[in-house]
């Protein structure tokens, strides 16, 4: 929201500098994002009268003007075709600086010396205000020798305010002036544009008489219609054009400029219909019929829905309420008579329509933030007075209106107790003074409470806390309040199991060489494809966003792996060639029969690197078992038992994929990526694991066992077993056969290759036997060990 400092000072006498106002506004909730001096470099331009004007003796396209700024006459050469004797124009004598910083001097044009330049709007820095080609003409009654920069208001400062959504009342000069008035107790109103101007109430001419206004939609509680006749073509006064330009609007014509200026001043958007093109002498406000169409005045066609509100006339849509007018009744250069609408529309309806249709107009912006219902008629009167003041139309007609408006008188009480509790002050008199400067009226008072009537432009104030906020922000939170810690803040909080677990896992993986990543929680369809997830896989049916930003971010991730693959893929594509490990801790979103669940997971990915050479040889390279070691270190640190079983995953290497189980329930996978995926990503080898955190949140409690008092007795057993029999199975078999005397089974050799029978591999285990109450004899051990060997042989192991 742009604010003119000059205009603000016309409304209000402010006992403070611009810098003080900026600081105060910023601290009290209306942040000033910037202060701009649009014509900062312009200086020294004076008004001057053209006393004589003749063609240049040598050059046909030039004129020689004799100008007088009250301090003396000089000759100035100009090429502008729009000048006549008696015009008052901006003159830059030598030494004058233009808006772009150029400093003027004396210049010779084929024997005639030009003393500076006569200036156009562009050279003054505001090309938008030009109403014709050539030199800018100043109002005819301008005295020579005036400082044009000040005269036109080009010395202005423009404040860009950031207005919070609750303060629609600040979207006007009037609103900001009210706010500044409240912020500076010494401020005095010079001119309050909201003060009603009684119209003369002339009745409407018969040929323009209106049959009526009907409100058929609750979204429009008030509709006022004014009449302007005998409109003359032409621009608005140059000072208004400058203000509109500085405040971000383009000057168009006196009529349009008057409505725009009134909106900037009072906050009420209006809409002008060309009386000659309004289909009927009536207005009906109603909801659009689904599928109904309208072409707006920017030439675009819109299909409407029933939530849109329409202004219609004779059954024809002539405007989308609060959003934009229709092309059919738009005012043009030739327009003579104008019907002028000032209405009040429901904020939500306007906001939804304008957002859906992508029309962010100045009007819809204001309506979306609630416009003061009491300002509509005032705005029409204000526009009429502008038009009459400018002498461009007759406008003193009675305003017609239709209203379903229910304006309640809101009264809110402020108590000393709550004031003290929140702001630590019990000065309720001071609070009352602050509130009354904000336009609230004290309507009841006792020692410990006061009640206030809330003005119509502050719909955001409805409860006591709102009053306290007003008092708090105007008193300021910085100096008036100490900083202290409530007594209860000295106890210790609990960071909770999940957070502690994630912290520990992070620490463990980072110390094991993993780089932590945080990826978007979205999943791209291309990764569902890359991972070859079949349609019936839960992970291939992710939750879909109804309004994604892009296809890549259209679904919620069901696995953390794609993000890691993407990151490593990008690193490799940008020239990374070293081995690298990455991990992410985060949630996946799994679809269920009914609804979904959010599951915390950890996923790790190791890439072997483009260059496999390592200083200590290939045994240092990552493989499935280094990752298994990482998983085991997490599991053991948290007392979680993970079982590994040969398994399959759509994206897993068919010979190198493990299912992970906790307490018999699936908990994740550990695998090498399918070679075809490695080829597709141009990264090989890739090892990955993904693990649910749930089992970690509920681990077996940590228990310590008494040390065994008697030494164990060891026996080794080696054998050949069929390759399809896993070492885990053989170990389990040994444990079962060994019974209670067998305490530990450790695999110490795996051998396949020369010497191993076809289809078999060698496994060698070390078995530790012991009893807890005495030392075992060799005979006892040999007899149990023989039973184990016998049992193994019976189950198809070839003992060596």
């Amino acid at each position: 929201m742009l604010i003119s400092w000059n205009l603000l000072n016309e409304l209000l006498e402010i006992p403070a500098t611009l810098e003080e106002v900026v600081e105060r506004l910023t601290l009290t909730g209306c942040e000033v994002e910037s202060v701009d001096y649009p014509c900062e470099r312009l200086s020294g331009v004076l008004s001057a009268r053209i006393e004589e004007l003749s063609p240049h003796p040598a050059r046909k396209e030039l004129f020689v003007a004799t100008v007088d700024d009250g301090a003396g006459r000089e000759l100035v050469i100009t090429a502008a075709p729009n000048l006549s004797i008696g015009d008052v124009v901006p003159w830059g004598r030598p030494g004058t600086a233009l808006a772009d910083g150029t400093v003027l001097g004396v210049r010779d044009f084929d024997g005639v010396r030009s003393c500076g330049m006569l200036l156009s709007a562009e050279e003054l820095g505001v090309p938008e205000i030009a109403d014709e080609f050539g030199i800018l003409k100043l109002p005819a009654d301008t005295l020579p020798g005036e400082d044009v920069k000040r005269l036109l208001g080009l010395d202005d400062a423009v404040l860009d305010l950031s207005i919070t959504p609750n303060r629609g009342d600040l979207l006007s000069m009037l609103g900001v002036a009210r706010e500044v008035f409240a912020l500076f107790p010494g401020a005095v109103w010079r001119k309050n544009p909201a003060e009603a101007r009684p119209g003369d109430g002339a009745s409407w001419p018969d040929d323009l008489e209106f049959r009526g206004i009907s409100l058929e939609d609750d979204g429009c509680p008030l509709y006022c219609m004014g009449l302007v006749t005998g409109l003359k073509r032409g621009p608005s006064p140059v000072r208004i054009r400058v203000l509109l330009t500085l405040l971000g609007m383009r000057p168009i014509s006196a009529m349009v400029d008057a409505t725009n200026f009134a909106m900037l001043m009072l906050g009420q958007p209006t809409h002008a219909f060309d009386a000659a093109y309004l289909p009927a002498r009536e207005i009906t406000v109603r909801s659009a019929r689904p599928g109904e169409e309208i072409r707006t005045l920017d030439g675009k066609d819109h299909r409407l829905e029933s939530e849109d509100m329409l202004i219609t006339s004779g059954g024809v849509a002539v405007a989308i309420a609060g959003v934009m007018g229709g092309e059919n009744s738009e005012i043009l250069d030739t327009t003579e008579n104008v019907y002028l609408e000032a209405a009040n529309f429901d904020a939500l309806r306007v906001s939804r329509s304008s957002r859906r249709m992508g029309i962010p107009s100045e009007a819809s912006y204001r309506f979306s933030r609630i416009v003061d219902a009491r300002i509509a008629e005032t705005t029409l009167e204000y526009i009429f007075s502008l038009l009459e003041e400018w002498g461009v139309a007759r406008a003193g007609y009675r305003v017609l209106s239709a209203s379903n408006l229910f304006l309640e008188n809101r009264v809110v009480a402020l108590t000393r107790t709550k004031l003290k509790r929140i702001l630590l002050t019990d000065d309720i008199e001071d609070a009352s003074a602050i509130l009354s400067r904000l336009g609230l009226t004290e309507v009841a008072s006792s020692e410990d409470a006061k009640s206030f009537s809330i003005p119509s432009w502050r719909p955001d104030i409805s409860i006591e806390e709102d009053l306290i906020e007003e008092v708090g922000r105007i008193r300021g939170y910085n100096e008036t309040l100490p900083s202290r810690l409530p007594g209860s803040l000295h106890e210790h909080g609990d960071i909770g199991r999940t957070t502690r677990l994630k912290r520990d896992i992070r620490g463990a993986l980072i110390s094991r060489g993993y780089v932590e990543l945080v990826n978007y929680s979205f999943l791209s369809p291309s990764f569902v494809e890359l991972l070859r997830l079949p349609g019936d896989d839960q992970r291939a049916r992710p939750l879909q966003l109804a309004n994604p930003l892009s296809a890549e971010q259209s679904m919620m991730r069901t696995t953390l792996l794609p993000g890691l693959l993407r990151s490593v893929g990008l690193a490799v594509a940008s020239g990374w060639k070293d081995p690298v490990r990455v991990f992410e801790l985060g949630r996946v979103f799994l679809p269920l029969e009914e609804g979904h669940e959010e599951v915390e997971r950890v996923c790790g990915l190791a890439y072997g690197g483009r260059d496999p050479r390592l200083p200590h040889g290939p045994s240092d390279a990552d493989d499935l078992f280094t990752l298994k070691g990482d998983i085991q270190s997490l599991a053991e640190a948290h007392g979680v038992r993970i079982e590994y079983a040969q398994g399959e995953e759509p994206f897993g290497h068919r010979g190198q994929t493990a299912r992970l189980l906790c307490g018999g329930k699936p908990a994740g996978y550990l695998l090498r990526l399918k070679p075809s995926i490695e080829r597709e990503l141009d990264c090989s080898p890739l090892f990955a694991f993904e693990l649910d955190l749930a089992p970690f949140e509920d681990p077996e409690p940590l228990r310590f066992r008494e040390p065994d008092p008697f030494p164990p007795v060891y026996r080794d057993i080696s054998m050949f077993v069929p390759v399809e029999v896993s070492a885990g199975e053989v170990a389990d078999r040994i444990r079962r056969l060994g019974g209670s005397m067998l305490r530990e089974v450790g695999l110490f050799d795996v051998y396949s290759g020369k010497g191993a029978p076809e289809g078999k591999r060698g496994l060698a285990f070390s078995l530790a036997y012991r009893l807890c109450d005495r030392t075992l004899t060799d005979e006892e051990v040999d007899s149990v060990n023989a039973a184990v060997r016998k049992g193994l042989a019976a189950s198809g192991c070839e003992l060596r």
Partner: protein
Amino acid sequence: MTSIQAELGIIERDFTEQVSAASSSEELQQVKVAFLGKKGAVTLILKKLGSLPPETRPAAGQAVNSLRDRIEAVIEDKRARLDEIESEAAERSSMVDVTLPHRGRSGGGVHPVAQLTHDVIEILAGLGFSVALGPEIEEDFYNFEALNIPQSHPARDMQDTFYFPDGSLLRTHTSPVQVRSMLRHGAPIRIVCPGRVYRRDSDPTHSPMFNQLEGLLVDRDISVADMKGCLETLMAAIFSRPLKARYRASYFPFTEPSIELDIECVECSGKNPACRICKGTGWLEVAGMGMVHPNVIRYGGIDPSIYNGFAWGIGLDRIAMLKYGLTDLRILFEGNVPYLLSGRSL
């Protein structure tokens, strides 16, 4: 001097010569055998003792034994010296280059936002706040309605939201956890909620996902002054030094009054008008906060006439950028491995 004694003198002289000439443990062993072995000089002389007259035997025996002891002691001493020389040579010959890289795994990389999140949680736990977590896929009720943001509220303009076909949404802030926690635990309550939040922001300088941290305290007789103290303590702990704070009135639907906290620029402390971090203002906007709106307390099942409190939200990504000197927000979510590894010394 008896002949035995003369013989012993010769043996000892020979021994001394030979032992000092021995330069390895094998040579030393040969010397030992030559004097103390079965056929060694000392052993032979012992055998001769029997042929001596009985009255001279004890003295001669003593002399031989004494020589043997001395020889043994010298050999042991020499052996220890040779062992030391030999093992030193052996160790030196198997010298390794200690400047070779270590085996296997280097330290990994810390994600700055995850690190900061944990640090902030620890700080707040010390102030009595407990962690509360909530779903990222939220119901409209908790994300908006219960936070005093009804359908018609203009504040919904501020938050463009990702929706699912069933009407649920990706939470746009961590604030829904406020009401969920109040409903679960009642008052008094002190919680902190870190987490991912989502906005449907297509602006190239914004990320559709970012990390927020919400704090909530509801108790009796809580003032704006308590909130100031709490936030200043938090900021000082995050940046490891006290920082000047500035409070600006603002607006959030779920707090009343609403305030924004600016801290002095951590880069220039307001001394550099050309500072790119604070854009010369000297201030950095770091938190939105306020006294919890009575409607929100009511939605949380708590009586606002008895309890009140404050809540705040901070953007962890932005604070991480300020704290660790990061320059690009989006790179934090794009899994840029080389970039994250560059922060190893964090």
